[in-house]
């Protein structure tokens, strides 16, 4: 808006008082708006990331991980006896939390809490 008003002021010598002023003002406003939009979109394009710049990141494997079955298994063995047993029963033998609770004589909620804590410890150890 400020740019349009400045442009109108700068071009005031081209205004003929005998002619309607609206087409004159509109022409300048349209010109400045087009200018602004052109600069805006050109700026956006300028700041857009070039595909070639991020190509090396695109090549990075997204499905592969440094974490292997062996490393998880090793970390599980380092857990306290109760937590390791719960995880083994749930994830190796396929028991549900309720079945595990019945098997080792714990409450279902306690099994879930123990499993959750075991996941936290595993996560921290594997991410290290």
């Amino acid at each position: 808006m400020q740019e349009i008003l400045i442009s109108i002021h700068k071009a005031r010598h081209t205004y003929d008082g005998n002619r309607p002023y609206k087409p004159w003002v509109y022409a300048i406003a349209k010109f400045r708006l087009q200018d602004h939009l052109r600069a805006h979109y050109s700026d956006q394009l300028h700041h857009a990331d070039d595909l070639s710049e991020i190509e090396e990141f695109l090549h990075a494997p997204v499905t592969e991980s440094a974490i292997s079955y062996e490393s998880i298994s090793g970390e599980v063995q380092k857990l306290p006896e109760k937590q390791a047993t719960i995880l083994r029963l749930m994830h190796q033998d396929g028991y549900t939390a309720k079945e595990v609770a019945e098997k080792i004589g714990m409450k279902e909620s306690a099994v879930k809490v123990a499993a959750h804590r075991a996941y936290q410890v595993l996560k921290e150890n594997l991410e290290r």
Partner: protein
Amino acid sequence: MSNIDELINKLAQDTAAVKRAPHPFLLGIEWMGGALSYLAVSLMLSGTRHALWLKVHDFWFAAELAALVGIFISTSLSAALLSYPDLHQKRRIAFAPVAAFALFVLVMFFAWRADSPPAPLPVHSFECTLSITLLSLLPAAWTFYVMRKFASTHTHWAGGIAFLFAFSIGALWLRLYEQNDSIMHVIQWHYLPMIGFGIIGMWLGKKILNW
């Protein structure tokens, strides 16, 4: 522009010295007058073709010159109108060069058909384009310089038409100077390069006439 108070003061001081722009037709006529003087001086220095007066009696040559003068007049008025933001609300006249060029193409087509048996091609070729370009440089620069004082909102068209106006002066000069009757040569080396010059003018207009 960061200091708004400073800007307001500057704009307020400017109001005292506003010189109204002339009417675009007056501007166009001024350009035509200047261009005709330039053409007359150029012809005085270079001389005219042999027996020009007799050649003017050739209908198609006279028609070609008249059509070229039509381009000269229409581009001059159009360039003047395009210097104003709203084309001085005379949009139809601003597009007059389209009709002038259509008429010119028609005249050249009939002149080419009437050229039977065809006149021999001259030995030179691009030298004509070069001569027209060199002669047109000064009017083109002058027109651009004057146009920059106004506020065109159609900068590319204004630049293109200004270049065609300047080129028409060069084309008129060469047609009155060069001893050549070959229509094919004239089309190829005099008039077809006009298209290229118009495009260059459009590009320059965008660069130079922006305000």
